[in-house]
């Protein structure tokens, strides 16, 4: 799954010479938190975030007089003065998995997407990945989730899929939680049917254990 397919293409940008107050307004009006900074030919030179700008702002504990002079000073600060130059970027040919892992490792919320010449092609943010996740979960289609505990060994998924398919039920998605008890996994098929009782009964007949919905989880903090 390439970033190319899921990134936002219509990206608002600023130039290094843009004032930070103008950049802040642009972000607020468009409800975004990252602005790629580009020069001629869309060559990326940096990224400025709403947090960069907030750090440059006067503290709220200043007196009125101090504030006024601070604001005059701010009017002269340019994006190039506070931006992250040479930010971490990704290429359109990298994958969503790359972007997810990089966000986790680098604790960054968005990456500019640039081609080999350094031209800005788009941006991939948590927002794009959220949209993709909602999509893969199948949440836009009517359905119901069930939770099954299985031994962590080969062939379990086939049994589940076969049993459900035999009931004439289609799948919206299947999630696997791998942090279950020792040697176990939890499988969560999202089924495009309201008729889940027959599926549950069939799975029980086959010896599977269905999880109490109040005990479901996909992920949790590691046990200490």
């Amino acid at each position: 799954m390439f970033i190319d397919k899921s990134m936002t293409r219509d990206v608002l940008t600023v130039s290094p010479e843009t004032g930070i107050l103008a950049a802040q307004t642009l972000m607020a009006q468009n409800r975004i938190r990252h602005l790629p900074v580009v020069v001629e030919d869309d060559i990326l030179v940096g990224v400025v975030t709403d947090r960069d700008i907030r750090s440059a702002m006067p503290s709220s504990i200043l007196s009125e007089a101090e504030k006024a002079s601070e604001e005059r000073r701010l009017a002269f600060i340019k994006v190039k003065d506070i931006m992250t130059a040479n930010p971490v970027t990704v290429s359109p040919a990298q994958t969503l998995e790359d972007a997810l892992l990089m966000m986790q490792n680098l604790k960054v919320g968005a990456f500019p997407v640039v081609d080999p010449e350094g031209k800005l092609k788009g941006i991939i943010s948590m927002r794009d990945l959220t949209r993709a996740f909602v999509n893969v979960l199948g949440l836009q289609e009517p359905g119901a989730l069930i939770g099954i505990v299985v031994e962590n060994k080969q062939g379990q998924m086939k049994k589940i899929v076969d049993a459900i398919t035999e009931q004439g039920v289609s799948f919206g998605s299947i999630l696997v939680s791998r942090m279950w008890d020792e040697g176990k996994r939890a499988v969560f098929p999202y089924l495009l049917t309201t008729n889940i009782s027959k599926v549950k009964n069939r799975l029980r007949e086959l010896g599977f254990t269905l999880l109490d919905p109040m005990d479901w989880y996909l992920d949790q903090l590691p046990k200490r």
Partner: protein
Amino acid sequence: MRRTGLVYDERFKLHKTGPGHPEAPERLTVILRGLEAADLLPKLIPIPATAAEMRWVETVHSPEYIHRFEQACLLDLGELDSADNQICPQTYETALLAVGGILNAVDTLMEGKIDNAFCAVRPPGHHAERSEALGFCFFNNVAIAARYLQIRWKVGRVGIVDFDVHHGNGTQHIFEGDPNIFYYSIHEHPSFAYPGTGREFEKGSGSGLETTLNSTILPGQGDEEYRRKIMRDLVPAFDEFMPEVILLSAGFDAHVADDMSDIKLSTEGFSWIMKRLFRMAVQYADGRLISVLEGGYSLDVLPELIRNHVQILLDL
């Protein structure tokens, strides 16, 4: 005692869904047997079912969809839109008959000949979208009744209460922009149950913002949570909205004995809900209430639940 109408027709059983399907004709058989055994049938005013006129069905469904549904039945295609929605050659006429029966109940109510009514109809309706059959539903019975009240009877404010254990996605979507039809649903939390809509943050859109309201119940919960959320959410909302007529999407699948959900409402819990709704109808709508059967698949408990439901409508 109130004058309560009953919409029932043996032909509602002609919609056959095939072996093992929970939305089966036997549901109506046991319901009727239950009413009979409790000697309630002589107390009810029978309302005939006649095929609904197409112009009323078209207030909710697209002509293309209606045509597609009709063709699928004529050609005996077996299902419409997904395997949940099993059809037979008679399904289309049965669905029209169900809608027509409910509209007859609306007429009888608005003419002042009854105080309220229970409509023991099949197929159910609340999942049906404008152009899609879903979750055993083909025509959205309650939605068509609401539009009929608006257009034919010039009712300004219609309140719909849906206590089927599943969210009525169809009804919500049809009315989410309409400030004059309030849709309230209480159902199992959508992360655990079909169809996955009806989250508490869904509150309508445009001028219909705040006339959609959802209360969600977590798996394993029952009477107490229903009581708490109806008092917290529905009661103040209707106090403000003041519906002139209340329509119920009456599903009985939240019962502890019904394996279609993880919700554990008791028989008494259902009676409490129904009494509360009856009171609200008296308070705002001069008692005007039409209850329309949706889900409820346990043939063991349906007769008792419906019997209690009807007894409360009769105010015995």
